[in-house]
């Protein structure tokens, strides 16, 4: 995990402006100016702060994902794109920052959700901003660890690397076409706290989990759709067709294209 100075996050004003313009331009490419129901969803993948396999980026170039216009935009200023002329419909995060997001990132993400857009939170990102109560309890509905708990600030309880069977829960559109599947060996978080206000989507068969929920919908917000999925660490998982199918469904639903 990397620590970084505030200066790095703040960057330059010029960089901010060009980032904003660049993300909008990239996302708008091949996006005809038609109604939001007809055009392809604009998806922004925002990792950062932690090593991730190539396969999680390549997932967005998988033929399954060709109904999206995808760009990668890591920190700093990852969410400045929400102010562009063609903001992302869905932001997919996989960042892991030992410090909280800078206030500018928080403001931009709040704006993104308030506009009714989507957020999909993968693996590392379920632990980002763990001390931001609104984020963990109202938006994500989970804690990877408790930053108020001395000794738990740098390491949650990890379990590496079990092979799990993941089973859908309920009849939500995200899980409707998904059968139970075996996930290749992965890093898991058996000690997570999942909010009772969250809606479970997927559960693991690993008996060591305090709560078997590994995929869920965040507590209801006034606007915006939020889905979390805690797998996604290893190369094997990130290129697994079942994992990709789940993520694809989550993006579709948070973008209002799956009912």
């Amino acid at each position: 995990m990397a620590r970084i100075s505030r200066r790095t996050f703040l960057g330059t004003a010029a960089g901010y402006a060009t980032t904003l313009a660049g993300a909008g331009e990239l996302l708008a490419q091949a996006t005809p100016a038609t109604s939001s129901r007809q055009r392809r969803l604009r998806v922004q993948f925002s990792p950062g702060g932690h090593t991730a396999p190539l396969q999680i980026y390549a997932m967005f170039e998988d033929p399954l994902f060709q109904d999206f216009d995808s760009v990668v935009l890591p920190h700093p200023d990852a969410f400045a794109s929400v102010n562009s002329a063609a903001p992302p419909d869905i932001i997919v995060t996989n960042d892991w920052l030992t410090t909280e997001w800078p206030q500018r990132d928080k403001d931009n993400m709040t704006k993104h959700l308030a506009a009714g857009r989507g957020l999909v939170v993968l693996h590392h990102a379920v632990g980002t901003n763990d001390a931001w109560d609104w984020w963990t309890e109202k938006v994500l509905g989970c804690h990877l660890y408790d930053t108020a708990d001395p000794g738990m600030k740098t390491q949650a309880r990890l379990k590496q690397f079990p092979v799990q069977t993941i089973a859908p829960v309920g009849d939500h559109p995200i899980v409707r076409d998904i059968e139970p599947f075996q996930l290749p060996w992965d890093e898991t978080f058996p000690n997570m706290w999942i909010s009772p206000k969250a809606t479970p989507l997927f559960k693991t068969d690993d008996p060591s989990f305090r709560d078997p929920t590994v995929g869920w919908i965040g507590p209801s917000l006034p606007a915006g759709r939020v889905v979390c999925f805690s797998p996604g660490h290893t190369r094997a998982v990130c290129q697994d067709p079942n994992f990709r199918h789940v993520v694809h469904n989550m993006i579709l639903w948070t973008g209002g294209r799956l009912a």
Partner: protein
Amino acid sequence: MAMRSSTASLYSRRRFLALSGAASALAASGVSARAQSYAAPVPGPPGQTPRYAKTDLWVQLTTGGKPYPPTLQEMFLDPMFIGMDVWPIDQPASFDALAPDAARTIASAPAPVRPASGRSAVGGGTERLEPADYPWEPSGGRPHPGYDVLVLNDQADWSEAQRKAIQRSVDAGRGFVLLHYSLGDNQDWPWWYQQVTGGLFVLSERESVKKSTSTKVANLNLTPAGKHPILRNVGPLSLRNEDVFKGMWQSPQITPLLQTSNRASDKTVAWIGPNAKARTVCIQVGSSRETHRDPHFRMLIRNSILWAGNRLI
């Protein structure tokens, strides 16, 4: 793809030997002293006997602050890059695993303290069920072998901690490959762009330097500026939908690799930086999906990484 240099063939042979589990055969096979040094055991935690040798070229890929297509990372899954272990670490990224003492530092990190109470008290340390063929994975607990080459496509002013790690890495002779956006890194760190990279995309006008410009061009033709191992099997490139830079600051000490006559661009678009310790390759292009999927561009990146990592002479 034919490889003509003797180093390239050594590289392939070593990869084969490593995959066969015949590390000991490497020393006896008559390869050069430099090639043997790659197979040196990686230092593990104190008191632990090293259990494996490093054979692949380890590459850190760092992006951030600018949007780009996922085809950049997808490119490194091309079999052309076999023998390289490429790991993305996006900003805010640590460069510590590039510095010489990284493996020891990371492996000896203190174990987390188990809390007596609180929301996370049910758990504790890390549990592992490692499969027999388990490779290195992030936070997997095995000592990190250390990166040989850093590939950049970020655009940021790095923190002091990052700069110190980079200075140690340059002194240790690590390799650097800078793509597109990263030519705008560290606007306020002259040592970086004057002594290491040899070029800077100037983001805002200064006393004596004008702001650089970026223009999207539908077609961009690049031709070799001379003979160099990096250009083997690359040939002239014809790229599409590229963002080209004009008005960059470029050191008179750079060695041009690729040039263009496109009027929206500076003439030299790929070059070798002036640093005597760290092999540094700068490539101004690399922003579009079409470019990332161009086999000639991929060969250029492959060769650049191998050369920066002292695997191509």
